[in-house]
């Protein structure tokens, strides 16, 4: 059995740097990661030059100044709350991702916190679809929930597998447990499923059906101006945060020779983002009804098997 006690107590960034600087740093890193992801995405889709890299920044400015339109008899309260919640949840999920080796707050349930922020996104995205009182947006919201039910269990099993090997749900413990061997070596399935689920809960790439062109943009179809910016920023930040979390859980976080930890973590994060964008943009959008069956019949057993393999390895002292 792995040692259940904390190997070394890593102070949170709040304890190390104070509340305001720590929060400001997390927000700044979250926004930067989202912008980098959007820029990489744009380069891969539209061909790469400096002009394409600046595309997302120009879009941000355009959405900031664009006049908002609305629909007939929307549920304004729920709609506003939901569009605001998407980026807030994305930034909150960054609270348990180590930045320079420290998380904003460190608890015995960091991985569950990350998962809970993504679960709250279910409510937010469905409400973004419900709010405008428009059919395409509502269809998109329902598509998201159907997809959500399908990716949720594989995602949970992938997260639990990393926690199982580390003997802790604390992200800094998971990083410490990878001192000898990165988890991606013994849990490649969990790694791939985690990244795919990240694309699914940001309804991006192959999982973009909730915002698909066949339903005129789906959940985002009635959003305009600042509200469109909030939701799209939330999606990009979730993708960037997931890449940072993926590097933390499966690629050893900040471990690496010569360079400082923070730089290694950043390099791995950007590498993962590149991997997600290049792979994700090569796959066509999956129809939810097809993906749902594949997820339940294939992904759930496969991730369970992965957890079983890791559990046996834990018992054999592989990660001790």
């Amino acid at each position, binding site marked *: 059995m792995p040692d259940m006690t904390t190997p070394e107590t890593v102070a949170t960034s709040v304890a190390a740097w104070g509340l305001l600087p720590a929060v400001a740093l997390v927000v700044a890193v979250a926004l930067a990661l989202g912008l980098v992801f959007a820029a990489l995405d744009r380069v891969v889709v539209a061909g790469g030059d400096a002009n394409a890299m600046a595309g997302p920044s120009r879009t941000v400015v355009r959405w900031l100044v664009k006049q908002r339109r609305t629909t007939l008899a929307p549920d304004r309260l729920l709609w506003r709350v939901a569009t605001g919640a998407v980026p807030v949840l994305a930034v909150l999920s960054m609270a348990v991702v180590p930045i320079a080796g420290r998380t904003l707050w460190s608890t*015995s*349930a960091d991985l569950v916190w990350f998962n809970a922020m993504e*679960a709250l996104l279910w409510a937010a995205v469905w409400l973004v679809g*419900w709010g405008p009182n428009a059919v395409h947006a509502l269809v998109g919201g329902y598509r998201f*929930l159907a997809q959500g039910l399908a990716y949720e269990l594989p995602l949970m099993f992938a997260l639990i597998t990393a926690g199982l090997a580390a003997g802790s749900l604390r992200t800094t413990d998971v990083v410490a447990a990878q001192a000898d061997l990165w988890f991606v070596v013994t849990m490649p399935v969990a790694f791939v499923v985690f990244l795919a689920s990240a694309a699914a809960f940001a309804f991006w790439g192959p999982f973009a059906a909730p915002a698909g062109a066949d339903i005129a943009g789906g959940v985002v179809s009635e959003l305009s101006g600042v509200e469109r910016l909030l939701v799209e920023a939330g999606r990009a930040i979730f993708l960037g945060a997931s890449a940072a979390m993926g590097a933390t859980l499966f690629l050893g976080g900040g471990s690496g020779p010569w360079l400082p930890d923070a730089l290694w973590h950043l390099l791995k994060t950007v590498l993962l983002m590149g991997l997600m964008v290049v792979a994700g943009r090569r796959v066509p959008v999956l129809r939810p009804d097809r993906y749902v*069956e594949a997820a339940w019949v294939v992904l759930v057993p496969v991730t369970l098997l992965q957890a079983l393999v890791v559990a046996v390895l834990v018992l054999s002292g592989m990660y001790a």
Partner: protein
Amino acid sequence: MAGDIAVVTLGMLAVAAGIAVFVVDSMARATFALLASFLAVAGILLALDLVYLAVVTALMMTMEMAVMAIFMIMFMMNPAGLMPMTMVHNARGSAVAGASVFTVLTVGIWTIDWPARQGTQPDDATRQLGESIMGGHMLVMLVIGIGLFATIIAGTVLATQRGRYDRFGPELDARRPHDPVAGGLPR
């Protein structure tokens, strides 16, 4: 002190959101008012340093409410649930029942002679709580869990309108099942 204020504030928020469930006139608002109430309870657990229970409460309740919203709206009398509705039926009876249960619980909580803490606060209160609830009853819990799961599957099998004869023909010899939604696997 800050913890006490948080618990009291979140407690009042939970009750207020719970009342809102029966005041609002749309199923979506009722559902998400209930979710707000649950999230306030999760916040109370967080203030009590039970982090795992708090985030699990938030996680489970959010998914539950999202799925519930679908079914509640699907089964409503007016299609899509876009017409005004109310969650209240038998208003007087339910008000009396709700108020009396609330009174009994509140009086009970405030008048019970709770034991004082012995020893110091553990590092991980969640682990201690789990061990004291589950410790000697793990086998029972596992059996109950499997029993519940079997019940859910049996209930679904009994409720589903289409069986294997509808899918694979009277002789069960069709190579591909005849399903209204094709699904994603080549079978």
